[in-house]
């Protein structure tokens, strides 16, 4: 296949920091290419250079259609046919599907493009992709998957020849991912190249032809996708071998801490039964929409169940608010760390003590400086959070350290049951290890842990028992020792 874009010797420095060093990259027309790397590996800088948002340092060149450029402007990049679909999708929720798809029509001239022409244009694009969308629906009323389709249609409407998608599967259910893969094949059939940007090896790898791995701003190489395994990719991205073994302690003598019987909530989940023993890590694996997060929120008192019973330490409890759950010793680390787990702009210290403020008051109901400080430092030391000053905003920390702050906040409430929802989302592979070590230590100290995830290795190597959830029901219970990654994947997808 002919090359669509050829990048040679691309470097980018910000001040003294090297974001990209001497990277070459070729993307052929109609190719599905995966660009993999950890956070900070340089993949987003590379995208910005291709889309013309940032110029590369001098010395490199970009060749498209035989034409050489030292750098691209956003307008040039669009004209050539590069379209980036960011993770936030960059759509207009208050405009209709048709207006979003054909918005470029509104950028030139004063007179309106006319409703009919706009609709015709959008309709043509939708037909080309073979999907169904209501042209007059407001984008704000669509599901995430439908919005993604709108974004793809908009790229197509702009005569894209290369579509770059940033983490496109992060918030899709399995069926929605399948639709996305079908559409990608359709784009490919039309000679449009697709680049998936990812920090983990996921479903899109199934149809990718080549994988390019970046680490610390350097390109490690480009491989055929079929030669790549998750483990090898992980090693390449991080530069470390990870060799996890399944280790399951014998917990048959430990008392049951949390017991759930016949728990149901209409539209969310149905007839859930399980126990977690003291010291046990129960892995709950399921895709988006399987009811995993809804179940966790019910155990945390934020979505009261319709039926069923929750027992803690043998005693039935009624959890009507998350305060009640916390008072009973249940803690919940949300999957959405950035908007539900942390107050990013505020100090690390304030975040750590947020749930335990009432315990830190001294005379006259004032916060005691000594007790606050010692609580903060206890959390920082207990979890090994790397901070220079606890008054710095949490935003300044890395993903892994941020997650440790969240866990520190919950440990301060002295929980007996810790629910972790996708605890390593957005955490670099190296830092994931630290989180797993913490979880195992907490379990060994006697906590009952429920670890929700959609990553197979996460539950396989770090949980003591695994529940598979699908469509709001528990579909099976497995012991890690009896399973391989493949057999677990089959159980989830089935």
């Amino acid at each position, binding site marked *: 296949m002919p090359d669509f874009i050829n990048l040679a010797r691309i470097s980018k420095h910000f*001040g003294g920091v090297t974001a990209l060093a001497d990277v070459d990259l070729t993307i052929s027309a109609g190719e599905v290419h995966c660009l993999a790397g950890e956070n900070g590996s340089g993949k987003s800088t590379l995208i910005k250079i291709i889309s013309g948002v940032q110029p590369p340092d001098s010395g490199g060149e970009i060749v498209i259609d035989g034409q050489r450029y030292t750098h691209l402007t956003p307008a040039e990049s669009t004209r050539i046919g590069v379209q980036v679909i960011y993770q936030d999708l960059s759509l207009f929720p208050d405009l209709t599907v048709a207006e979003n798809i054909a918005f470029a029509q509104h950028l030139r001239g004063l007179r309106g493009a006319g409703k009919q022409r706009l609709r015709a244009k959008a309709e043509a694009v939708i037909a080309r992709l073979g999907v169904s969308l209501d042209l007059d629906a407001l984008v704000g009323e669509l599901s995430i998957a439908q919005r993604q389709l709108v974004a793809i249609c908009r790229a197509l409407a702009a005569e894209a020849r290369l579509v770059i998608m940033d983490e496109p599967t992060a918030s899709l259910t399995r069926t929605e991912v399948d639709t996305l893969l079908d559409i990608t094949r359709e784009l490919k059939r039309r000679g449009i190249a697709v680049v998936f940007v990812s920090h983990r090896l996921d479903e899109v790898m199934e149809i990718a032809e080549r994988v390019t791995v970046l680490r610390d701003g350097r390109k490690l190489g480009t491989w055929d996708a079929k030669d790549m395994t998750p483990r090898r990719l992980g090693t390449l991205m991080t530069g470390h071998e990870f060799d996890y073994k399944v280790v399951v302690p014998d917990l048959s003598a430990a008392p049951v801490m949390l017991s759930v019987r016949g728990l149901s909530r209409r539209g969310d989940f149905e007839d859930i039964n399980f126990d977690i023993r003291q010291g046990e890590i129960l892995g709950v694996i399921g895709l988006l929409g399987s009811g995993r997060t809804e179940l966790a929120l019910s155990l945390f008192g934020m979505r009261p169940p319709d039926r069923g019973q929750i027992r803690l330490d043998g005693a039935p409890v009624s959890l009507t608010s998350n305060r009640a759950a916390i008072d009973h010793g249940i803690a919940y680390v949300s999957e959405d760390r950035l908007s539900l787990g942390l*107050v990013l702009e505020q100090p690390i210290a304030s975040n750590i003590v947020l749930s335990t403020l009432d315990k830190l*008051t001294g005379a006259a109901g004032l916060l005691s400086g000594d007790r606050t400080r010692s609580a903060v430092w206890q959390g*920082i030391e207990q979890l090994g959070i790397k901070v*220079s000053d606890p008054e710095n905003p949490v935003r300044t920390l890395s993903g892994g350290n941020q997650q440790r702050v969240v866990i520190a906040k919950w440990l301060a409430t002295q929980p007996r049951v810790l629910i972790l929802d996708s605890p390593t989302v957005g955490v670099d592979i190296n830092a994931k290890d630290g989180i797993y070590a913490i979880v195992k230590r907490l379990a060994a100290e006697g906590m009952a842990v429920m670890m929700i995830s959609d990553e197979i290795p996460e539950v396989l190597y770090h949980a003591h028992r695994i529940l598979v959830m699908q469509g709001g029901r528990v579909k099976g219970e497995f012991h890690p020792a009896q399973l391989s990654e493949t057999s677990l994947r089959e159980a989830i997808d089935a």
Partner: protein
Amino acid sequence: MVTYTAPPARAAAARLWKPGPVLLRLTVLFLLLMFLFGVLLGHRLFNGAAIRSMAFQLPELAIFSLAMMVPLLSGGLDLSIIATANLSALAAAFVFTHFGVSGSDASVLLWHIAALVAAFGVAAMVGLLNGTVIAYLGVSPILATLGTMTMVKGIAVGLTHGGVIAGFPPFMVFIGNGSILGVPVVLLVFAVIAIPMGVLLTRTPFGQRVTMLGSNLQAVRYSGIDTRRVLVRVYLLSALLSAVAGLLMMARFNSANAAYGESYLLITILAAVLGGIDPAGGFGKVSGLVMSLIVLQLVSTAANLLNVSQFLSLALWGAILLGVAGIGRVWAWARLFLPARKPS
């Protein structure tokens, strides 16, 4: 594993002595203005009378600004503060004028207490209404308080037909215009309120919750805090502070009216933002607000002494806010070109 530079106690102590950038900027501005007006006015500015007149004027706006600051910290806004203040003052005035304050000392004291109860009771009702509509119905604060502002003022106008209620016992006159050891009582009232407010907002669980939810309400809710109750208290507190300001206005004018002090409303927002309170919520200190009020009052007094219209100081107040923001932008822009400071 743990890499921290200073042991906890020292780090905190060091912070105590380090003024924030807002306070620093305002202090520099204050000194510059003092110098400028000092040259222009000389001893006319630095005499007891001028300073006393400043001290009499400042507290009303200052307490209104505190009443605006609390909702601003929580990421909201309270447009109903002036209306609430006037209705509260009218309630107190009604008690004073309709039930006659004479007779024994005990009954005089009783009527004063009754007047206060009336004023704060009215304010509490408005605050609870605001808080409930904002926290439980999810109405945006600007719209909810716009509605209550109009309604509360409407009630005040309706009950008084726009008229003035005047004639209060000597104690109120003393509060409004008297001094203790040369310090105006109104200023003492402000100090008695501002200091506990500073403590409340920075050193109590409530204050922590307000600033935290001002930055991210959902995260605070997920941390097991009943954010709706916190919000109701925010607007309750704002209304009660408004009532204090309303009573001070009443005491100073020796009268109450539905439309006193309306020009203060937007000025309080301006003063708060100048004092470093982030209108998006989550950041701001009482000390910054006080410094900003002092700067604004200085400009206003100087304008007065220079015999120029009070309205010029209004324009200057707006210009100062824009100017300070502008300098901040230029400074941030210039820092891009300066060598980065080594992390300490």
